[in-house]
C-alpha cells in the first residue's frame, strides 16, 4: 500500500483578481481523514478541484499514490481512484439512482447499457458499505441526505480509494450530519482515505485525523483534534481571537408587528411550498425560522416581502393588511429586508456603491427632487453608510461588484438599517461571509431588536438561529413543526424537528 494516497505540493492557482491557492501543500494517508478547514473563499474548493483534475494548477504538483501526476480532467483522477462528492451535487435529477451511479462507466453489451448488471452491482455495493438505497428511485424524488448517499456510491462504484467531500454537511440536519460522519469513519476501516471540507469547527474536531487550516489561499496551520479546540481552530481560521457567541440581553417583546395567518404560497414550479403557516412576531423580539433549506423558507420570505403573491391566507403589519401588497407598499410600512441572494436581490452589481446605498429610497426626498436624483445628498448618505457599517472599499464610486461578499452584505445592512424600521426580515444574513463580518452583522441585528424592531430571522445555520433568536420556529415541508422558546431549544431538539420528527 502506498504511503501517500493523495497530496498537493506547493500548489498555486491564480484566478482573475484572486490568488485562490498560494503555495499549498497537504497530504492524505490511507485510512485517515484529512479535514480542510477555512472560511468561505479561503480556497478549499479550488484546492480539491485541482486534486480532482477540474482545474490545472499554475504551479506545483499533484501526487496520487506516491506518484507525481499530470491530470487533464476529472476522468484522469477518477481512473486513478479519486472520487469526489461536490458541494453542489452532480446528479441528473430525472434519471434513476442506478443510472446516476454508473453514468460514464456503464456496464454495457454491444453499446447498450446493461441495466440488470448495473443494478446488481449497485445493490452489492450498497450492502457491502451499509448504504441502503432504492436503485430504481428517481434522484429528483430523493431527500438531500439520500442524494448525497448516491454521490458517495457513485465514487465507490468507480473503486475510489480516496473520497473527497466538499462541505457535505451544509445541506443536512444535525442528525443526518452525525450519521454521515459515522459512515465516513467506517469507510476508512477499509483503507480508504477521506478529504473532508468544512467550515464547521465541531465537525472537524469530531472526525478529523489531521487538520489543515486555510486562510486567503494559504496554509495557516496544521494540527490534530488532540492538540486543539474550537477556539484555537477559530483563531487559526480567522487570524485573530473571535467571540463564538454573541452577547445578548433578554428580549422585551411588545406589540405584535407581523401577523401571518394560514399563509399558503406556491414555489416556481407551482407546488405548494408554504402550507398554511400562522405565526406572529412582536416588536423587540427575534423569531428565528430554522429548517433545512428548501422547506419553504425562500417562498415564505418572498411572500412576506411582497416579491411573491400568496395563494391564500393573510399577512398584517401593525394591524394593516398587506397580503397582496407590492414590495414597495410593504417597504413603506417600515420593513427592511436582507435578501437571501445578495447578488440577485441585494445589490445591482453594475451600479456604484453610492447608488446601491439608496436602492430602497432613491425616489423619495431628500434623495430626489421632482424626479431628479440629488447626487450630492446620495453621496453624503453613502459616505455615512460606509463609515458606520465598516464597508471596506476604496471609494463610494466603485461598482458594487468589486466588493467582497462580506462588504456587500454590510452595505446592504447599512442601506436597510438607515431608516427607522418596524420589521426586519433577514434571510441567510451571513451566508458565505467572513467571521468578522458575521459578528458585526449579528450585533447590528440585535441592536435593531433592542431599538424595538420586530425581527424575522431565516437561516439554515443552526448556530446562528440558536445564537440570535428569542423564539425558534422550525419549518419542515412548508409547515411549522413547533415554536420553541430559546431557552428550551437545543441542537438535538431543533435538529429532530428539522427532520420532521416530533417524537
Amino acid at each position, binding site marked *: 500500500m502506498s504511503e501517500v494516497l493523495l497530496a498537493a505540493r506547493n500548489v498555486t492557482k491564480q484566478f482573475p483578481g484572486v490568488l485562490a491557492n498560494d503555495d499549498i501543500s497537504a497530504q492524505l494517508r490511507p485510512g485517515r481523514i484529512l479535514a480542510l478547514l477555512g472560511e468561505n473563499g479561503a480556497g478549499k474548493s479550488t484546492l480539491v*478541484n485541482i486534486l480532482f483534475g*477540474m*482545474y490545472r494548477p499554475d504551479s506545483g504538483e499533484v501526487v496520487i499514490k506516491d506518484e507525481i501526476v499530470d491530470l487533464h*480532467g*476529472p*476522468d484522469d483522477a*477518477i*481512473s486513478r481512484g479519486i472520487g*469526489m462528492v*461536490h458541494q*453542489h*451535487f*452532480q*446528479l*441528473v*435529477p*430525472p*434519471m434513476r439512482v442506478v*443510472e*446516476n451511479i454508473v*453514468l*460514464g*462507466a*456503464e456496464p*454495457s453489451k454491444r*453499446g*447498450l*447499457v446493461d441495466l440488470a448488471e448495473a443494478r446488481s452491482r449497485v445493490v452489492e455495493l450498497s450492502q457491502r458499505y451499509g448504504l441502503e438505497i432504492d436503485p430504481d428511485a428517481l434522484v429528483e424524488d430523493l431527500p438531500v441526505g439520500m442524494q448525497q448517499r448516491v454521490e458517495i456510491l*457513485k465514487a465507490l462504484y468507480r473503486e475510489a480509494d480516496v473520497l473527497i467531500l466538499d462541505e457535505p454537511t451544509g445541506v443536512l440536519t444535525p442528525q443526518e450530519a452525525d450519521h454521515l460522519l459515522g459512515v465516513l469513519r467506517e469507510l476508512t476501516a477499509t483503507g480508504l482515505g477521506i478529504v473532508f471540507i468544512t467550515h464547521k469547527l465541531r465537525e472537524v474536531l469530531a472526525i478529523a485525523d489531521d487538520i489543515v487550516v486555510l486562510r486567503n489561499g494559504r496554509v495557516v496551520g496544521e494540527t490534530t483534534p488532540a492538540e486543539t479546540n474550537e477556539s484555537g481552530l477559530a483563531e487559526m481560521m480567522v487570524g485573530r481571537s473571535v467571540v463564538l457567541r454573541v452577547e445578548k440581553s433578554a428580549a422585551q417583546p411588545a406589540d405584535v408587528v407581523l401577523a401571518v395567518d394560514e399563509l399558503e404560497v406556491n414555489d416556481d414550479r407551482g407546488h405548494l411550498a408554504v402550507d398554511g403557516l400562522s405565526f406572529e412576531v412582536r416588536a423587540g423580539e427575534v423569531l428565528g425560522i430554522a429548517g433545512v433549506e428548501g422547506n419553504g423558507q425562500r417562498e415564505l420570505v418572498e411572500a412576506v416581502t411582497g416579491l411573491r403573491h400568496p395563494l391564500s391566507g393573510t399577512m398584517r403589519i401593525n394591524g394593516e393588511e398587506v397580503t397582496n401588497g407590492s414590495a414597495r407598499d410593504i417597504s413603506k410600512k417600515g420593513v427592511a429586508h436582507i435578501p437571501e441572494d445578495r447578488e440577485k436581490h441585494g445589490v445591482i452589481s453594475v451600479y456604484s456603491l453610492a447608488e446601491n446605498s439608496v436602492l430602497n429610497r432613491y425616489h423619495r426626498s431628500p434623495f430626489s427632487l421632482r424626479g431628479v436624483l440629488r447626487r450630492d445628498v446620495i453621496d453624503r448618505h453613502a459616505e455615512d453608510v460606509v463609515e458606520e457599517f465598516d464597508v471596506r472599499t476604496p471609494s463610494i464610486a466603485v461598482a458594487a461588484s468589486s466588493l467582497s461578499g462580506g462588504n456587500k452584505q454590510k452595505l446592504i445592512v447599512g442601506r436597510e438599517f438607515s431608516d427607522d424600521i418596524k420589521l426586519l426580515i433577514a434571510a441567510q444574513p451571513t451566508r458565505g461571509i467572513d467571521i468578522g463580518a458575521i459578528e458585526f452583522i449579528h450585533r447590528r441585528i440585535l441592536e435593531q431588536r433592542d431599538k424595538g424592531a420586530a425581527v424575522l430571522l431565516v437561516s439554515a445555520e443552526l448556530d446562528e438561529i440558536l445564537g440570535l433568536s428569542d423564539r425558534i420556529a422550525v419549518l419542515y415541508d412548508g409547515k411549522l413543526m413547533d415554536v420553541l422558546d430559546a431557552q428550551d431549544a437545543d441542537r438535538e431538539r431543533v435538529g429532530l424537528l428539522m427532520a420532521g420528527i416530533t417524537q
Partner: protein
Amino acid sequence: MTARQKQLLYVGAALLVVMSWTFYAADGPQTTAVLAGTVRAATLLALGAMCGMIGERSGVVNIGIEGQFLLSAFAAFTIASMTGSLFLGTVAGIGMGLIMGWMLAAMAVGLKVDQIIAGTVLNIAALGLTSFFYDRSRSLGMGKYTNIDLGPLAEIPLVGTVFFSRPPLTYLTMVLLVVVHIALFRSVWGMRTRAIGEHPGAADTVGIDVLKLRYFNVTIAGGLAGLGGSYLALEAVGTFSRAMSGGRGFLALAVMIFGRRTPFGAYAAALFFGFTTALQNQFQLNNTFDIPPQFVGMLPFVVTIIVVALSGLIGSMRDPAALGQVYEKG
C-alpha cells in the same frame, strides 16, 4: 405520461380507426388518398423531429431544421439530376445535412453563439443559397423513388396501401424511428446524451466530454434532417422548387414537443399533423369549401397552434434542464 393521458390517447386512436374504416366503406379511393398523404407528410416531419430531439436531448436547440431540409433537398436534387442516380442524390442530401449540422455545432457549441441565432443563420443561408443557385432547367430524368410492395402485407386493404406499399425512404424512416428510440433510451450513447442535456456539470465530473458529445450529436442529427431533404426532393415531390420546405422544419419542432421528444411519440404526432395536411389537400382538390385555397391551406398550422396550446394545458413535459444554455467548465 399519466394513466389518464394514456386512456385519452387510446380512445382517440380507436376513434380514428373506426372513422377511417367508415369513410373507407363509403369512399375507398379518397380515404386511401388521404391516409397515404398522411404517411407521406408524416415521414418528413418525423425525420425533422428526430433531428430536433437529438439536439435538444443534448441541450442544444435547433431551429435551423427548416434550412437543413431546404439546402439538403437542393443538394439531393442537384446531384441526382447530374448523376442520374437517386441513391447518390440521397447520399448527397444526407451529406449536406451533416455539414449543416456541423455548422450549427460549430456556432452553437464551439463558438457559443446564441443557439436561436445560430439556427436562424442556417435558415437564412439555406434560403439565399438555394434561391441563387436554383436552375429551372434541371429535372430528374429517371423520375422519383417509386413504391415498393412489401409482399403479402401490401395486399391488406387500406392498411396495406397506406403503410406497406411505399417508396424506400419512407421505410428507412420507420426503421430509423426504432433505431433512434433504442439508441436514446437503451444505449450508452443515449444515457450520456440525456445526461448532458439535463445536467452537463454532472456528466463532466464523471469524465464525459460535454462539448465533444454535443458537437457529435448536433452533427449526426443534421444527417437525419438531410435525409428529410432527400426525401422531400427525391421521393415526396420529385423536383426542387424555391422554399419548398414550406415551414415544415418548424412544424417538425412542434411535432417533437408534442411527441415529448421521443421517436414514437413524435411519429404519432407527425401522423396527426400529416393527417391535417392530407385532409387539407383533399379539400382543395374536391373544392369542398367555397373559400380561397389559402385559407384551406392554413389548416395544418391552425391545428398546430391549437394543439400546442392544448398540450400545454394537458400536463406539459419539462424541457431538458440545460436546454439552450452554453456549458462552461468549472
